[in-house]
């Protein structure tokens, strides 16, 4: 009955230090005064089984946290997590005003996106978040053999359930590691960023990812960044969602400030990070936007060397970790908007 843990224990995650081009324990990569910025959003049970009145089954994946009686989803056809998302059947053709059932609860299709026909807005007769918790489960991955429960994908800092997939760079942390790092004088501070879907099965929509994602920067984070900077500590982002949140904020407002907005910023090599001195991040392939982003911290040849030396590392959501810290001079924090 109880869900088994499908996740690796954090101590088995390997950390590769790109600057020194070798594997190093996480705790030795960070020093007193460093600030680790984490995404404290919780993970939604964003995969919801539904059926049409004529009995066809489909999977609804939340695109963002539900609001009131409404949820925005991408619909996938029959099949489950054992099939790669790209190979799944297309969702049934539906029209606005038609109904699907989630458990015993009807939900009406209120809108269908003009460009991406599998993107729907649903209105349910019950508050949508409770419905999602009653009938949803985490988005599953074809490379993970047993079904994942929320206990497997929640991170140690999880708070408000905004994310539809886990900010997975945080999987490297358990409470023991956090405690160890705190004892060494490393500090933690949080922002909240709604990590979106990684795949939808719709090629055109996948090419448009990431969609706009909500970012909230609390005043405590702004203070923590300024304090760490003033005391000579480095600002290390845990995961690309943190990078998108911080850099998107600077892009939007011209500086790091407390805010809550719909973040459309795209990370890339052309815009060097204004806030971060480094990142803990998954292992990425050359050519991906994540890989290109890391060139903002270290030269490309160093990244390629790291990739070659960490060939045996696991990528994906439950993969290993790279520590990438800046070797270039830092851009001032209070940079004004171009």
């Amino acid at each position: 009955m109880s869900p088994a843990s499908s996740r690796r224990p954090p101590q088995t995650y390997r950390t590769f230090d790109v600057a020194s081009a070798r594997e190093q324990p996480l705790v030795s990569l960070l020093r007193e005064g460093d600030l680790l910025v984490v995404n404290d959003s919780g993970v939604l049970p964003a995969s919801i089984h539904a059926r049409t009145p004529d009995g066809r089954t489909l999977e609804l994946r939340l695109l963002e946290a539900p609001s009131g009686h409404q949820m925005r989803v991408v619909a996938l056809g029959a099949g489950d997590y054992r099939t790669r998302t790209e190979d799944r059947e297309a969702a049934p053709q539906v029209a606005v005003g038609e109904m699907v059932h989630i458990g015993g609860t009807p939900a009406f299709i209120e809108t269908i996106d003009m460009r991406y026909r599998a993107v729907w807005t649903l209105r349910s007769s019950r508050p949508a978040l409770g419905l999602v918790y009653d009938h949803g489960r985490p988005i599953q991955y074809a490379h993970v053999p047993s079904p994942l429960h929320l206990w497997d994908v929640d991170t140690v800092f999880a708070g408000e359930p905004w994310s539809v997939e886990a900010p997975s760079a945080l999987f490297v942390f358990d409470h023991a590691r956090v405690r160890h790092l705190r004892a060494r004088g490393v500090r933690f501070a949080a922002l909240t960023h709604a990590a979106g879907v990684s795949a939808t099965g719709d090629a055109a929509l996948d090419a448009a990812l990431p969609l706009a994602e909500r970012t909230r920067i609390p005043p405590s984070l702004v203070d923590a960044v300024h304090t760490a900077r003033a005391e000579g500590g480095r600002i290390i982002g845990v995961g690309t969602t943190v990078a998108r949140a911080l850099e998107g904020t600077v892009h939007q407002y011209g500086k790091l400030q407390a805010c809550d907005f719909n973040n459309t910023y795209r990370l890339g090599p052309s815009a060097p990070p204004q806030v971060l001195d480094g990142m803990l991040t998954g292992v990425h392939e050359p050519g991906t936007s994540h890989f290109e982003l890391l060139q903002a911290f270290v030269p490309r040849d160093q990244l390629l060397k790291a990739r070659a030396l960490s060939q045996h590392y696991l990528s994906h959501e439950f993969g290993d970790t790279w520590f990438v810290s800046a070797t270039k001079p830092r851009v001032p924090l209070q940079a004004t908007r171009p």
Partner: protein
Amino acid sequence: MNVLITGGSKGLGYALAETLGTQGARIALVARTEAPLTEAEGRLRAQGIDATAILGDVAHKEDIHRIVGLAHAALGQLDLVIHNAATLGPSGPMPLLGDLECEAFEHVLQTNVLGPFRLTKALLGKLSLQPGARVVFLSSDAAVHAYPGWGAYGVSKASSDHLMRSFAAENPEVQFLAFDPGEMDTEMHAAALPDTDRVSLRRPNDVARWIASALARPIASGTRVEVTL
């Protein structure tokens, strides 16, 4: 201040919701039975209190993320978590340990020990990032003294006290406390000792006010506090 209270539809849980809510706190109330929960939410709202009802049973591992997710969605962040939900186990009369069904003991531990453990575990990291975050456990005299018939409950409350102390030892960023409220005029007390003269019992409202004022004073994390009225 944002407060999550389990077992919030009746007794001390409801009294704490009303007391803290009247002082301006926003409340998320958790209970496992819908009708009294909805009624409690309505009574709090009628007093102008920002209250949200969350249906869930802390004894069920599967309910924990639902509780945590809905509470965070309603309140943003939680500043105070009160583990008030508890079960006495079989009553009328309360069986001696030798007569207690094994499954009945398991259920008492699921509700009174593992429930608060799981809920705290799911909230812990986030609470540790918020200066001043607190987690309160409800204790009992039965945690300290052994009485015939109170074995399962007493063991669960002694365990809950030590759970509180252990969390406190491991997490200096969060304040953990336990309060022993004494004998109160509640449904649980009536089930345990139906012949008691109710006038001799403490009223949940008085205990809730005492706890609310104690929470306003500095107390070392890991302390078990006896309510003195």
